[in-house]
């Protein structure tokens, strides 16, 4: 057993990639063959098991990016700048997928591609635009300490923007967006909840894998550039 855990920690990347593939394969199996059809929406409701985990994962990405941004400002940690950028980059990718799956689901169940009377949709769009601007900021400023600080401050503004926008949008809305998680716990059957949890775990695992892969790539890039400068 000890031998196995040592092997696993040596190959953390491979292990987490395997876990992500296994979880996602299991969740696809559960979504299509195990979870029951929804009584109102029928088959199309199954997109829920992709849409909601994608959205939650992108929130996790943004939160992780903000945490790393805080480390940049607080400890002056240079590594954290790249980590914060990679997390937000992944968050924007998951966010784009959330908007696409949400739009498809809205078309199937409400008959429209987009609905402005939806809290979660509008909030997500505002955040998505906000984090897209993060890249514009990052790529228009020269790399260095100043850029790391600026990007970190902007990323922290994002975390504050989430509750503020939510409050703004909540002030005057009716909503038809299904509210699955209320104060009385999840409003779904056990089999649905299990499928949802597996899918969520798979998505988060996918984020972890992609995060480490992109981080490794970016670090190798930076080392290569340093070596080139030494040789030149």
């Amino acid at each position: 057993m000890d031998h196995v855990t040592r092997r696993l920690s040596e190959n953390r990347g491979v292990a987490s990639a395997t876990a992500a593939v296994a979880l996602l394969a299991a969740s696809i199996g559960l979504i299509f063959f195990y979870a029951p059809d929804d009584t109102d929406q029928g088959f199309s409701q199954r997109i829920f098991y992709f849409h909601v985990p994608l959205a939650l994962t992108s929130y996790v990405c943004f939160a992780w990016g903000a945490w790393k941004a805080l480390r940049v400002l607080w400890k002056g940690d240079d590594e954290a700048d790249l980590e914060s950028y990679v997390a937000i980059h992944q968050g924007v990718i998951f966010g784009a997928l959330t908007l696409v799956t949400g739009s498809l689901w809205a078309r199937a169940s409400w008959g429209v591609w987009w609905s402005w009377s939806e809290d979660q949709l509008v909030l997500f769009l505002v955040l998505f635009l906000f984090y897209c601007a993060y890249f514009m900021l990052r790529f228009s400023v020269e790399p260095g300490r100043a850029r790391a600080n600026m990007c970190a401050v902007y990323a922290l503004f994002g975390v504050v923007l989430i509750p503020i926008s939510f409050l703004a949008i909540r002030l005057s809305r009716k909503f038809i967006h299904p509210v699955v998680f209320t104060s009385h716990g999840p409003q779904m059957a056990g089999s649905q909840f299990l499928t949802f949890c597996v899918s969520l775990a798979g998505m988060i695992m996918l984020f972890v894998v992609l995060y480490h892969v992109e981080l490794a790539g970016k670090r190798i890039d930076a080392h290569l550039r340093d070596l080139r400068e030494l040789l030149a």
Partner: protein
Amino acid sequence: MTYAADVAALARKDLLLELRAKETLPAMLLFVLSTLTVFHFALPRGAGGLAALGLLWVAIVFTALLGLTRAFVAEREQGLLDALVLAPCDRSAIWLGKAVAVLAFLVAAELVALPAFAAFFAPVGARTIVAVVLADVGIATVGTLLGAMAVAGRARELLLPLLFLPLAIPIVVGGVGASAGGGSRYLAFLALYDAVFAVLSWASFEYVVAEA
């Protein structure tokens, strides 16, 4: 006491520059009047005062953007920001001084814009005026911080609207809600926005200009 004196000196510097060069404020005034004229043609005939009130907020946000884009240009072009960072004053005083100057420009622009709006479209109520003042404070605090970021970039005129507009959406929600008769909770929301982002900008400005 010295902190307040630093802030006053920096704000006075900006207002004096503007009085002499007259670069920003005339442009803002002309812009807001042109925008209101465009809105007259953009609105369908008989659209009513409520639709126009929404557009008033668009005019306010875009006029503010025009002023904010210019806010740090002199500092950056003449290397003034480096000197200010070296000066023996708290760096957040630089932010506060600039925010006060920006706020003064905004209020001046709206002293023209609101009567013009009332004459062209619909009367402006007391609640709208309070909402505009609260929104100005929010725009000045957040906009000054983002302006300092954008001016460090290559495409500063392009960058600032992209950074600013997502953060201005809650201001527009609060402002439109308050002026369209939504009740005082919208005003309370605007005040909350101002307080939260003023504290955040005040605390983080130091990192934006340090080692610039």
